[in-house]
């Protein structure tokens, strides 16, 4: 498969005859990156699949109005993040009668996940990450695992670089404290 730049892909998408092909190229180019981004937020594979499909469906519907004021990659990440957070909120609302918060449910989902290949320490690290508030969790994952520069993160999450640095610091500190207590 040929490698096109985002600009070329968008140009092809705007052309009616190559629209579907361009969209399939966009899906191919970004599916893995977005999958892992979403997976770290919603944990479960099936839920990730749902959110990822919804992300691309929203992309298809919104791509005509995409003004290229930001990069395609940034825009896709923003949709994926919002979709994943929306999914978690919906999930937490649909389990109103559950006495446990969504973080606990995610932690349980992690324990029973057949697609989790990490060892004991990796499991503890994931559980530590799950204790973080939503936004901090996303910032931590993007910085620690994806090594996303703060400037890029700032565009995706629409938050200042300073606030993101502070958020990462708080998150890393909390994870560190959790690990100290649980990995003695």
């Amino acid at each position, binding site marked *: 498969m040929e490698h096109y730049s985002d600009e070329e892909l968008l140009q092809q998408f705007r052309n009616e005859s190559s629209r*579907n092909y361009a969209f*399939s190229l966009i*899906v*191919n180019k970004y*599916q*893995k990156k977005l*999958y*892992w981004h979403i*997976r*770290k937020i919603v944990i479960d*594979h099936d839920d990730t*699949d749902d959110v*990822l*499909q919804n992300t*691309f*469906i929203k992309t*298809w519907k919104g791509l005509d109005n995409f003004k290229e004021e930001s990069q395609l990659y940034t825009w896709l990440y923003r949709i994926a993040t919002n979709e994943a957070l929306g999914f978690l909120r919906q999930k937490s609302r649909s389990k109103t009668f559950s006495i446990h918060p969504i973080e606990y449910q995610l932690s349980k989902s992690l324990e029973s*996940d057949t*697609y*989790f*290949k*990490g*060892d004991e*320490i*990796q*499991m503890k*690290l*994931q559980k530590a990450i799950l204790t973080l508030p939503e936004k901090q969790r996303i910032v931590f994952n993007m910085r*620690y*695992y994806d*090594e996303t*520069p703060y400037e890029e993160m700032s565009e995706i999450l629409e938050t200042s670089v300073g606030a993101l640095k502070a958020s990462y610091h708080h998150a*890393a*500190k909390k*994870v*560190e404290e959790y*690990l*100290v207590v649980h*990995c003695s």
Partner: protein
Amino acid sequence: MSEDTNINKDGEENPGRFRKPEGFDFPEDYFNSFSSRLFKKLGSENELAEFKLLAALPKIHPFVVPDNYFLTLEHKTELAAYPGLASVKPGYPVEVEAGYFEKLAQSLQYKIALAEELKEYGRLAAIEKVNPFDVEEAYFDTLTSAIQDRLFAPQAPGLVERLLELFFTRKTAYAFGAVALLGFSIMYFNRADTGNTGTCTTLACLEKNEIVNSAEIKNMDEETLIELIDVRALSDSLNTHQQAKELRKEQEDYLMENVDANNLIDEL
């Protein structure tokens, strides 16, 4: 370079030691000095960053030498036996992405900065940074078609749409419209009967019971209440009341004076 670098003094192979592939060789301290050479290079890159114009220029040799200048006589003699090989221009057979080497230093600096950042959190830094989640490789092969199926598959109408289609024919639409129009008309005329214009905001326009039962008014002091009274409206209302009273008195007097008592009894 000696052949026994992987053999210890007892003649056994060193267990954790990297074994050089046969036929290849490199300087003894290549890997030991690699990091120091790397940092030195990064240092010189940083140094150059102060001079923006100079840093922007591609760092290349502008001078050239005649072809095969560096080939020694020995090489030339050797190659003479293989004219095909001698005709091949020496160079690297593989190519790298354009701008790779320019990005490399930047990328290394970023990696070092990330590692430094993580050093602050000892436990976290000690954990191997791996993605612990897994997914079937075939999943990504089918994702595009799954999304396209969802996008382009004809969607079955929902329950509400089906009910609307069933009941909301042209005739029922007209009937529904007529009922709605009738309902709104009744509401409008009932509202008009109250006599409240909706524009009056003074006490004079309110019903007596509304005023008496209003909790807000109960809590108001005398001065505020007086401010709320529209004197002209009240005066008009009192005058009208007075005029009606006077008219009724006049009518009674007229009847008493001009109508016979028997006639009155007959009328009743």
